[in-house]
Each structure stands twice: as C-alpha cells, then as structure tokens.
C-alpha cells in the first residue's frame, strides 16, 4: 500500500519535458502517455498513478494529499504559497517571470496598472520596489493588455521573448528565474519516504548529467 504513488503532472508546456525526465530517470512510461485525453493514467508496472492537472492546480492537489508528489513551475509555487515540500529543481522548462510593456513608455504616476496571471507575486515585487500598483487579474493572452490600453505593464512568463516581440512589447525587468520543481505532500514525504527518496535520487542523477548532454549535443 505504501508503494503506490500518485503524481500530479502539469498539462501543456511542462508535461513533455517532465515525462522525458522521468523516462531518463529509468521509469517506464507508456508511449501514448501525452496523447491521452484521460485525466488519470495508471502505470501499474511502476506503481504510479498520474493525474493530469492544470499547472496552477498541481500544488493544490499535492497540498491536500490527493497527490503524493507533483511537478510544478516555480512561478506557480510563488503565486500559490502552498504548504508542500519543494524537493528538487528539475531544471526543465526554464523561463523567467518579467515585467513587460510597450517600448519607450513610462508607468502612470497616479495609478500604475499591471495586468497579470500572478497577482500575489506582482504585488510583492512592486511593493519591494517601493511602488504601489493596481493589479488587474487576467487568465491568458496577457500581452493584449498594454496594447489595447488596459494596463501600463504586464507581469508574465517569458521564455524566448518571441511572443513579446511579435506583439511589439519589450521586457523591462526580470523578476525571477523560473524552472520546474519536484514537490511533495508533507505527510507522503514521511509515510512514503523510501519511495520518494528513490525518485529524488534517480531524478537528481539525470539532472546533474544535463550539462554533459549539452556539450555532447
């Protein structure tokens, strides 16, 4: 019973890289893994159950213990502040959380408006800068906001910067670098410690090897 592990995986961007990492760590995952429309995938030969969740929700599943471990972006961890263990930097899905806007513009002096999917991180960042801003929460296509005049700036994930560029926006400041993390529920971390430690050490080996792969390829 203690051996069975439920893993919350983020759908979309991070999924393929995360699955690839698990495969490199020697876990046998079914080939049709990513194509599946299923939300729950059992992998009996590894004693795994994967649940596929929205990236923002992964720490929630893990905090409540319905998933033992999960893979979540640091951006989500910062925004959600869930009570979970952050065990490992998987160093995948590298990107950064940045402030962006139209080129050569200044923020309003009276009430600067910032559109973002990350209201908590944004508020904390500007407060540290000594600036009081008004935050507008959006759920996607954040780049629209400054273009059509909803906000002065946006705070969003930037990986290559192409999306910003294509929409005529520029990056002003980087807030923080983002990678994906292996997270664990505090109870599972103790009750299933052997199993989770095994995953951590196996993943750790393939993460450490990464620079070697880079120079070879």
């Amino acid at each position, binding site marked *: 019973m*203690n051996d069975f592990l439920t893993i919350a995986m983020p759908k979309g961007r991070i999924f393929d890289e995360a699955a690839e990492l698990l495969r490199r760590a020697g876990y046998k995952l079914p080939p049709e893994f990513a194509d599946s429309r299923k939300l729950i995938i059992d992998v009996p030969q590894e004693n795994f159950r994967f649940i596929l969740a929205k990236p923002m929700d992964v720490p929630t599943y893990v905090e409540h213990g319905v998933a033992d471990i999960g893979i979540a972006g640091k951006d989500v961890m910062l925004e959600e502040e869930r009570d979970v263990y952050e065990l*490992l*930097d998987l160093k995948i899905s590298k990107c950064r959380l940045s402030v962006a806007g139209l080129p050569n513009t200044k923020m309003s002096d009276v009430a600067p408006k910032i559109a973002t999917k990350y209201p908590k991180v944004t508020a904390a960042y500007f407060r540290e800068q000594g600036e009081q801003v008004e935050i507008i929460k959006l759920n996607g296509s954040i780049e629209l906001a400054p273009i059509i005049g909803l906000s002065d700036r946006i705070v969003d994930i930037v990986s290559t910067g192409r999306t910003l560029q294509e929409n005529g926006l520029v990056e002003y400041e980087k807030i923080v670098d983002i990678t994906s*993390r292996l997270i664990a529920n505090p109870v599972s971390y*103790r*009750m299933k410690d052997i199993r989770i430690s095994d995953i951590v050490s196996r993943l750790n080996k393939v993460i450490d090897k990464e620079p070697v792969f880079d120079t070879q390829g």
Partner: protein
Amino acid sequence: MSRLFMFEKPLGMRDTLPDLYETKKRLRTAIEEEMQRWGYQFIETPALEYYETVGAASAILDRQLFKLLDQQGHTLVLRPDMTAPIARVAASKLLVDELPLRLAYSANVYRAQQREGGRPAEFEQIGIECISDETISADGEVIALMISSLYAAGLDHFQISIGHIGFVQELFLQILGTEERADALKKFLYEKNYVGYREHVKSLSLSSIDKQRLLDFLDLRGGEEVLEKAASLIENGQGKEDIAQLRQLWQIMNDYGEQAKIKFDLTLISHMCYYTGILFEVYANQVGFPIGNGGRYDLLLKKFGKNSGATGFALRLDRLAEATGIFEKEVPVTCILFSEERRKEAIGLAKEKRANGERIVLQDINGVKNIDLFSEQFDDVILLIGKAGKGSGE
C-alpha cells in the same frame, strides 16, 4: 455585502451530523480514558481569551486569529490553540511548588481560513500537557501516550517524526555565526523549500566543509543511524547534548516497546514557534495533513510568570476521524410506533427498555406521513396500535 442565504455558514465553519458525531464521540471517549489511565486530569478553559495575553503567547499567526471587542474595548480572541490557555491556568493557579503537573483537554479551537475551503476554521483538539518536568522521561512519556491514545482510538497505521529545534538552531549558529543569518536559513526549512535552502547555502561565503555540513543536514531523516550522522555534523556544545537527548529518547521509546512507530527527522520545524527542544508530528495513511503534533516548550510559561518547562501534544479529532473512517451506526435503535389509545402502554415499554440501556424512539403514528420510509431507519419497529389487548398488529 451580498445578502446571506439561510443555509450559509461563515468560511470554514462546519456542522457535525449524527454519524460523524458518534465517530468523534467514540474517538474522544477512547482517548480520554487512555489519558486518564496515565493520570492526566482534564480541564476546560474559556473559548474567549484576551488578545494581549493568550493571543500574543499563542504561536498561531495573527491573521489566523478570530478577534472581537468586549464592551470595555479590550480585544478578545477565540482561542487558536489550547497550549497557551493551559499555560495561563497552570502558571496562575495550578502549579504548586513547581511539582510536575499532568493536564489534559478536549476542546474546540479556532483558526480563520484565508484562502478557500477544504479546511475547517473550528476543530476539536484533544491533548495533554506535562508541565514542570524537564526530564527526557517526560518527553518520552508524552510521545508514548500519544501512541497509546492512537491505538485506543483504533488507529494502527501511523508514524511519528521527531526533530529537535534546539539542534537546528545550534548547528546553524555554529556555522553561520549570527541569529539573523541562522533565521534566514531556517525560513527555508519552515517554508519546506529545500531547493531554495540549497541555493542559499551555495551562495553563502563559507568554507566548502561548512557548506557540505549544511547540505548534509537535509538528509538527517531516518532511524537511530541519523543521530550518528547528526553528531558528526555538530561541534561540541549544546548541540551534542541535544543529540544525546534524542539518543536517550530512542532508548526510552524502546523501553515502551514503540520504536517502530518513530523516526527522526531533524529538518522538522514547526510553525509553533514556542517549541524549544524535541518536537514531533504524527501522520496517518489517507490523510494529507498531520493528525497531531507536539513538543517541548520551556519558555512559554515564562510569559505567564513561571519558570517551568513543559511538553505536550495535541491530536486533531477531525483528521483522526478521517483516518479511522466514519463508524457505521452500531448501536441498534428500536422504534415504538403507537396510536393514542395505547400511548400509556408505549411509554411504559419504552421506559423499561431504556432502563436496560436500549435506544428507543417513541413515535406517535399520527405524526408520521410515510410510515414505511420512517420505519426503514430503525433496526426494529414495535407497533402498539389499536385497542389494547386486541393484538399489536405486528
């Protein structure tokens, strides 16, 4: 503010319906009896306390406190835990000549929820405090009693992680030099952010040996062998004594025959900032949060004017109920359905059966619209209908 509907309750407040009530009552009774067998005496304290005294002494975050004003304008709090109120009572009333004092409680505590549901803001804690005994035997007794209480509650699959906050503090101080730098690193532990911890350690200007000591610290989880490793990380002084304490505790748990239930986890840090020494959490399968926790708090009573050490634990009844599962109704309930003519006979019969300890529902048949549906709820139904002596109609 939008108009409230009649069925709404404040965020995090829950009703306890009959099945859960029975479950909680059985758990409570079983645990209370076990605690009493160990000589602990139950007390009650008020739900409201002063914010300035008990509110400030408690380790619960300020934003989690329910606050209100009394008519004189004092700020009151709904007690967020029981340890601080018990420290108040013990320090002001019960502690005599610093003799060891064993107190127990079972009470609701209140912690406001900020974000969302899924967690109760009012829940019952059942626990004990062993006050004015600073020996390691007391720490051992408290953990052993927690284990016994869980057995009494019918739980077999659980595990206890034991840490030592004094050791963490001493190790960090030895390596980092100042409280401030030690606290900065401790914050990562408190936030359970091991990635941030490692990055922070790497960024410090320390010798590679000291960095490795701090990184190795994260691996201090497991059985007795962990204490060996921990001792090798720390220089002589208080930290070594803390480890010696944990060794003794391991031996004591062996004397109680309960070594299998405990593991050491020296990375364990509690949000309860009043802990000063050994601290622990208990986990059960199927429950995503700890079902209980405890530890030694040697400075809390000082806030109430007494220089006494203490240790204790609290179990959460709601999470315990989640771990044991809801008990199915086991005590049979019999219904006596009567018509007016035979009311007296029905009352007599009910009285007789109740005196035997049976659970009897007495129901006038004219008060029930759907008799079949009503009868289904009971294990047995006795009909006393029609003229007496003409048969009961069964």
